[in-house]
């Protein structure tokens, strides 16, 4: 139960976490993330890294689509730019991992800024089509700029190395992927406590009003595109270190739709929504497989129920859209509200 959270200063009002319980829970979560690699199997570590990468990219898209209202279907292609940047930097220059990841983010950001230019003239579905076009162009570049990208065969990425230690197992990669994702999440959450973040929200809610209020649309829309692509680029860079093989087919359009679905299911315009959506979209197919695995005659069941799993996954997504259009984050908020006054009022 939470009783009273009086806010006496502006700083308190703008704080991300406003009660000791929240800080304690955050501490528990942090501790769990620290302990997790020591107790989890290779499979769960693999999934944890994959989820973290997807969370980073979904959060990037959430900044652009959820907070700024600019629909983009280019997230996977921006991740591709980041992944290629890491592959090239690692192979050609052998620069340090963190620098490569920053380079990946920077490269994707530059591309994102260019792709964002049409957002000044077109909105909604039209912008989505413009970003699809951009992603096709990027795929064409990945496949045909053979000298740099290795063409359709792509590039193999050497393992990331930190202080001479090769990060070639999930356990080691976890310590790279998860902290960076946490850092990116903290950055995104704090962004919306600043003028920039509030400008993004103003543009989303009514761009003409935002301009009247003195927000330069050109600068802020492009900034949103740039930031979102930076997130995608870093996520793509992590992806490259994680899978160690980058090809033009690694980042299909379907992957962009996956991220869009993740933030819609999770809850647009909410950092928690991006996290929950990415976790949901990545883990539910695996969880459904686990459930089928518990059935008697699991091997036969897996063959027979394979299409059913796909249908259940689809039905779950549709179900969320119908019954909770504000996404998983809203469900989480409802649960929290219930416990705020529990057991005095339920």
């Amino acid at each position, binding site marked *: 139960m939470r009783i009273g959270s009086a806010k006496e200063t502006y700083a308190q009002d703008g704080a991300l976490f406003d009660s000791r319980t929240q800080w304690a829970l955050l501490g528990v979560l942090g501790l769990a993330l620290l302990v997790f690699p020591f107790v989890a199997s290779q499979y769960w570590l693999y999934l944890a890294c994959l989820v973290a990468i997807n969370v980073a990219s979904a959060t990037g898209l959430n900044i652009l689509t959820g907070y700024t209202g600019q629909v983009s279907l280019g997230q996977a292609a921006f991740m591709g730019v980041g992944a290629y940047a890491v592959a090239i930097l690692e192979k050609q220059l052998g620069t340090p991992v963190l620098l490569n990841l920053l380079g990946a983010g920077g490269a994707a950001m530059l591309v994102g800024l260019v792709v964002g230019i049409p957002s000044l003239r077109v909105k909604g579905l039209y912008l989505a089509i413009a970003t699809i076009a951009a992603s096709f162009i990027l795929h064409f570049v990945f496949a045909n700029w053979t000298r740099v990208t290795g063409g359709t065969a792509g590039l193999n990425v050497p393992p990331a190395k930190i202080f001479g230690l090769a990060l070639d197992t999930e356990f080691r990669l976890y310590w790279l992927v998860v902290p960076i994702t946490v850092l990116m999440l903290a950055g995104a959450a704090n962004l919306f406590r600043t003028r920039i973040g509030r400008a993004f929200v103003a543009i989303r809610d009514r761009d003409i009003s935002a301009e009247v209020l003195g927000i330069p649309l050109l600068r802020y829309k492009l900034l949103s595109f740039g930031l979102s692509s930076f997130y995608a680029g870093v996520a793509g860079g992590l992806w490259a270190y994680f899978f160690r093989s980058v*090809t033009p087919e690694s980042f299909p359009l379907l992957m962009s739709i996956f991220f869009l679905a993740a933030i819609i299911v999770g809850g647009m315009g909410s950092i928690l929504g991006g996290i929950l959506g990415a976790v949901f979209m990545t883990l539910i*197919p695996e969880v459904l497989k686990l459930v089928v695995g518990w059935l008697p005659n699991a091997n036969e069941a897996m063959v027979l129920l394979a299409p059913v799993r796909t249908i259940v996954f689809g039905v779950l997504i549709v179900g969320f859209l119908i019954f909770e259009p504000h996404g998983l984050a809203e469900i989480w908020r409802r649960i929290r509200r219930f416990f705020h006054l529990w057991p005095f009022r339920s």
Partner: protein
Amino acid sequence: MKLSKWLTALLAAAGIASAPVAQAQEEVVIGGSIPMTGVFAFAGIGINAGMQDYFKIVNDAGGIKGRKIKYVFEDTAYKPDVSVAAFKKLTGGNKINLYYGDSTAFSRTINPELDRLGTIMMAGASFATEINDPKKFPAQFMAGPDYSEQIGILLRHIAKEKPKAKVAIVYSDSEFGRDPVNEFREMSKKLGLTVAAEIQTAPGSVDVSTEVIKLRRADPDYTIFHGYVLAPIPEFVTQMKKAGSKSHFMGTFWTMDSSTVMKMGEAGDGFMGVMPYRYYYDTSAKAPMLDKIRQMRPEYQSTAYLQGFLTAMLFTESAKRTLEAGKPLDAKNLKAALNSIKNFDTGGLIGVPITIKGNSVPVGRIYRADMKAQKMVPASDWIAVE
């Protein structure tokens, strides 16, 4: 005294605890990332059935040198990240010796992990030329000719049937499609054939009318399609035939399932292609293993089934040879055992005895579609490439 008692008790407990593990190690464990859903499910279901059937045959006959085969698999939906997850899950819960991977992307992604582990030999659904390199992919192989070798087999057949013929290749703009294009060019030159056209189509394209016009202008004697399962091949064949073209049309392995070719309808009559295995219904020669398959499954089984079946056979043979030599079942020994296979009889699945020098089985045969009989019939003898 007390300490030694404790130690004895601990050791005994450890002994009890390790007993089932030791028993589990008796099994030869084969894992698989199998696409039971998604775009490649048509093949995955067949591959899975083929492997399961062969393992059943071996287990019913007492296993490999008394060790039973345990087959564990996971659905991948033909997505490389899910395939890797399946690999991690299966290798985490089982001591896997052999593994079946579902795509080129997966084979490439998992390769450093296979090298690092050194305990697993892998084969899979990919016939990518790149994987047929024992130096880069020391722990992998494929149960058939790679895509370049498949094109080589087709071109050899063409050169024999019509020397100096004009040949064209139509391929999809994908990694799969582009794979054998260089080999097509070089081998055509070597065999004295003229390259009339190289036509690239966008992956998944349906309207190919401009490409058909290009192909008509080139007027090749033979047209090879690669990088597709079916579409847009029927479109090409129908439009070319309507325009009076006399070109012979050919495909590579993943197009060649009987049911796929039959979907082309009338226009597909005479469609040829390379097949590394005998078709389920091919009774043109003695094939005891095919007889066994027909007994187990009276209905038609796809070429993917046969691919899974032969892969399982090669897995088993490698494990058998390794165990016979008294060596542990690790990647190096299994691969050495695989490469010791010389003039091996596949029970008629492949019409000639096979020898595996590198990462592929470079043998195939040309089959032709007979639409009246609704069957693929042999159009050449078995062709081996070096």
